[in-house]
């Protein structure tokens, strides 16, 4: 017995004395960089440690014999080593390989600005950014114009990107093309976009080199992704001297489905009586807009979304006639537009996903232009160049489309994507009783692969094949981009792509004997991103061919180029509570198109464009203050006059530089059970003289500056929302 006790004591004490063995070593990543914060453990035991800031670790263990040491860290594949623990071990070296995952992998970004929460780090603009940009009045395109690549064009709606005309930028909602993203054109006055920023969770502004999923946009694509199920039910109302609106959004209890309706009425009569306008509105602009939506989550984690909007509006503007100042030009417009979009995103299992989009829109315009005398009565004066400006134009534009995209997950996070689209467009115009119809069956198939070769190197390879029945031509457009991660949050990308676009309808009404206009894009960029800061620099070169010429004949013989450098810096970090971004674009572009006698810088292209957007929310005042300053150098203008068999530049010049300082403030408060936001804003605070170009009289002797309809636009309004969801109250009632 005694022996046994002694033996036990010996075993136990021996065990204790020799129990702990020291194990030490270091951890690196596969590039040989020191890794701090990795955890090291003897597998199956409690013993282990954490690597320090120099990558070293040391710990003691009771374990003996053959053991596995395992080292792990977030975002890396764990590494294991088998060791024999009989004495202290030093100098173990572990190398951890990065796991390829969507958050860390490079993203192919050349040419595109991602906005929204899809890629956390790449967030550039959110819907909140849109509504809190000073002077933008919650118009998506106006805010996009503060990003590099877009021009400050104020006389026409549309995004004029990198030397491209407004119609060379297309908008897509949930993958399908939007035919009339803006309210109908009015001469020399840019119109707003039709869609509220709150409809979208993400906006991708692609200034070139974009995916093979999109086509028929020579310069740029604005890709809008609608919101899924809203966070909560809500009733809303808005009040302003300019408009009234009300809406309801209902989310079911399980947050699996929702529906909503909205109606708004805009009328500028009160506003115009308070703020004099430079043009005479004989029909005050008035807009009715109604929309409805429903969204349903499917069992497999997909979602079905439907959105429809209907609007009707009218306006009439009277301006002095440029050829004869004793006369007036009266322009009247009535528009109705109905848009609907159904999209279905579904997981098909085994790595397959499907995106199906259906959309239909119809747009009707009734436009008149009338020469009137000082008493506002129609007159015929004799000279054909004046009388021929009398016209009545009725247009109808329908677009029906279906688009299907299938995704197949390959190894890792690489994805193969393919699909097709079919668009049927029907355009009819009646110009002074002369009717013309343009139907087009447009088909496209496309395929694209996102290949993640390593966490640091990704490629996007795509190709698109299109056919338009109207011009009866096909095209094949390859697209390629590569991205390489150069460091933490930093990457370089390059992109190349060929883009085609069929001519605009106003040329096709004359002849359909056209081919596609073609642009070849080359882009290189560098981005450095942290969650609160983004720096980006991008250079591009574009070559155009096949641009529409209208003289001496309607052909595709136009050519051109564009090149430039752009900078972007957004910072929410340096000054607490201050969010600002700066963008700068340098553009050198020339094109020979329409009736240009040779390659000229088009009248929508400024050499230097820059914007500074500053936002500050002061929590103690519940108020946000937002400023936007935009600057652009003057743009060229020309008076092209036909001289025998050619067009001459009878006059040319450059407009004055463009300056604009917009301001808005939003004050948050509770009004009874409602949360309210009071918004006040003004555009062009400094009352800068803005000239967008010149109009010439027929004889070329008179020229008139194209300016905004008023130097400033003021807005004040209150937006109220009531959360129908009483969750917060329910918790409070439990107290």
């Amino acid at each position, binding site marked *: *017995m005694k022996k*046994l006790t002694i033996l036990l004591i010996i075993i136990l004490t021996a065990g204790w004395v020799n129990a702990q063995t020291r194990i030490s070593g270091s951890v690196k990543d596969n590039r040989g960089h020191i890794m701090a*914060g990795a*955890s090291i*453990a003897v*597998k*199956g*035991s*409690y*013993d*282990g*440690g*954490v690597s*320090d800031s120099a990558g070293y670790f040391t710990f003691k263990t009771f374990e003996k014999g053959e053991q596995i040491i395992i080292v792990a860290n*977030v*975002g890396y594949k764990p590494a294991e080593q088998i060791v024999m623990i009989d004495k202290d071990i030093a100098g173990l070296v572990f190398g951890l390989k990065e796991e390829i995952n969507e*958050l860390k992998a490079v993203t192919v970004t050349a040419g595109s600005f991602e906005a929204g*929460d899809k890629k*956390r780090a790449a*967030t550039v603009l*959110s819907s*909140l*950014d849109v509504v809190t940009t000073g002077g933008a009045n919650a118009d998506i395109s106006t805010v996009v114009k503060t990003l590099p690549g877009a021009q400050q064009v104020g006389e026409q709606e549309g995004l004029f990107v990198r030397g491209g005309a407004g119609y060379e930028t297309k908008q897509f909602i949930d993958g399908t093309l939007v035919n009339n993203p803006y309210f109908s054109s009015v001469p020399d006055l840019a119109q707003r976009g039709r869609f509220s920023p709150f409809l979208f969770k993400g906006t991708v502004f692609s200034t070139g080199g974009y995916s093979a999923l999109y086509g028929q946009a020579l310069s740029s694509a604005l890709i809008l992704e609608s919101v899924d199920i809203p*966070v909560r039910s809500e009733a809303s109302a808005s009040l302003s001297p300019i408009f009234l609106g009300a809406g309801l959004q209902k989310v079911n209890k399980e947050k699996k489905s929702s529906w909503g309706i909205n109606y708004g009425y805009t009328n500028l009569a009160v506003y115009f009586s308070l703020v004099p306008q430079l043009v005479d509105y004989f029909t005050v602009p008035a807009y009715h807009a109604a929309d409805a939506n429903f969204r349903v989550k499917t069992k497999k984690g997909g979602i079905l979304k439907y959105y429809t909007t209907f609007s009707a509006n009218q306006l009439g503007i009277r301006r002095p006639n440029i050829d004869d100042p004793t006369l007036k030009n009266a322009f009247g417009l009535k528009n109705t537009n109905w848009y609907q979009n159904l999209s279905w995103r579904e997981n098909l299992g085994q790595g397959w996903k499907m995106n199906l989009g259906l959309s239909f829109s119809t747009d009707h315009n009734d436009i008149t232009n009338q020469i009137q005398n000082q008493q506002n009565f129609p007159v015929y004066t004799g000279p054909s160049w004046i009388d021929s400006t009398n016209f009545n134009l009725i247009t109808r534009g329908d677009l029906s489309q279906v688009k299907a995209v299938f995704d197949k997950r390959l190894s890792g996070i690489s994805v193969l994507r393919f699909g097709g689209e079919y668009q049927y467009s029907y355009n009819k115009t009646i110009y002074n009783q002369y009717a013309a119809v343009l139907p087009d069956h447009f088909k496209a198939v496309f395929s694209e692969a996102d290949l993640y070769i390593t966490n640091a190197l990704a490629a996007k390879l795509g190709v698109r094949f299109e056919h338009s029945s109207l011009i009866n031509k096909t095209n094949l457009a390859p697209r390629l981009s590569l991205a390489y991660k150069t460091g933490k949050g930093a990457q370089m990308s390059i992109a190349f792509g060929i883009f085609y676009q069929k001519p605009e309808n106003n040329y096709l009404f004359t002849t359909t004997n056209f081919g596609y206009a073609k642009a070849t894009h080359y882009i290189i960029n560098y981005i450095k991103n942290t*969650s*609160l800061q983004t720096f980006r620099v991008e250079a591009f070169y574009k070559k155009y061919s096949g641009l529409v010429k209208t003289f001496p004949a309607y052909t595709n013989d136009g050519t051109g180029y564009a090149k430039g450098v752009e900078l972007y810096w957004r910072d*929410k970090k340096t000054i607490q509570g201050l*969010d600002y971004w700066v963008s700068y674009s340098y553009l050198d572009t020339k094109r020979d198109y329409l009736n240009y006698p040779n390659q000229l810088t088009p009248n929508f292209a400024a050499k230097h464009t820059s914007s500074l957007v500053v936002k500050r*929310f002061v*929590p103690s005042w*519940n108020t946000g203050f937002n400023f936007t300053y935009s600057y652009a150098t003057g743009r060229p203008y020309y008076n092209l006059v036909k001289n025998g068999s050619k067009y001459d530049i009878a006059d040319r010049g450059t407009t004055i530089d463009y300056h604009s300082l917009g301001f808005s403030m939003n004050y*948050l*408060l*509770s009004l009874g059970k409602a*949360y309210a936001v009071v918004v006040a804003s003004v555009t062009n605070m400094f009352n800068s003289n803005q000239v967008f170009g010149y109009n010439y009289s027929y004889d070329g002797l008179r020229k008139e500056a194209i300016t905004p309809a008023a130097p400033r636009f003021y807005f004040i309004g209150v937006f109220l929302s009531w959360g129908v969801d009483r*969750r*917060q109250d329910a*918790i*409070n009632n*439990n*107290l």
Partner: protein
Amino acid sequence: MKQLLVIISMFFFGMVAAQSKYEGAMAKGLEQLQAVKSADDMGATAAFFERVADAEKDKWLPYYYAAYANHLTGWMNPKADKDKVAEKSKDLIAKAEVLEQNNSEIFCLRQMVAIQQMTVDPMARWQTYGAEANNALESATRADPNNPRIYYLNGQTLMNTPEAFGGGKAVAKKLFEKAVELYKTFTPASSFHPGWGKEDAEKLLAACQ
């Protein structure tokens, strides 16, 4: 016979030792958690709990504390990449949830992690992460409405929310009162189960007066 007895008793002793090895580790970990002085200490504590959890395989509490300690490193180190910290916390929470489903305490932890991610850029993120935090507390309430930490955490969030968004001291005060009341009667299921937050709730309630 005696030898047999010794062997048997040694066998039992061994089992008791194994049992108390886990308990000893938990006690040691919780002690460490109390004594933490720096973000590095907190990180080491988190790693310790994770090792215990990985070795035990069937116990959710060490994963819970690993996630809790890991989450706290995000606050203690002002330079921490909160998104990266949250990624790790969520990873550990998911492991705890596999072992213990529908637990109010784990849902509370989910709320804390979502709030931490929201603070990176509150203006831009409250819609996503604010909703995630609210959903977590709703689930926590459904699982156990008498968990004081639900009201403490909700109060803490609302205290830092502007009044115009439904926050403010007045709203938070009610929640802290509720939390303090529940803490009085709350007894953790074991000495290792979560019981933290009482002093903080009292402190914040005082700050709301």
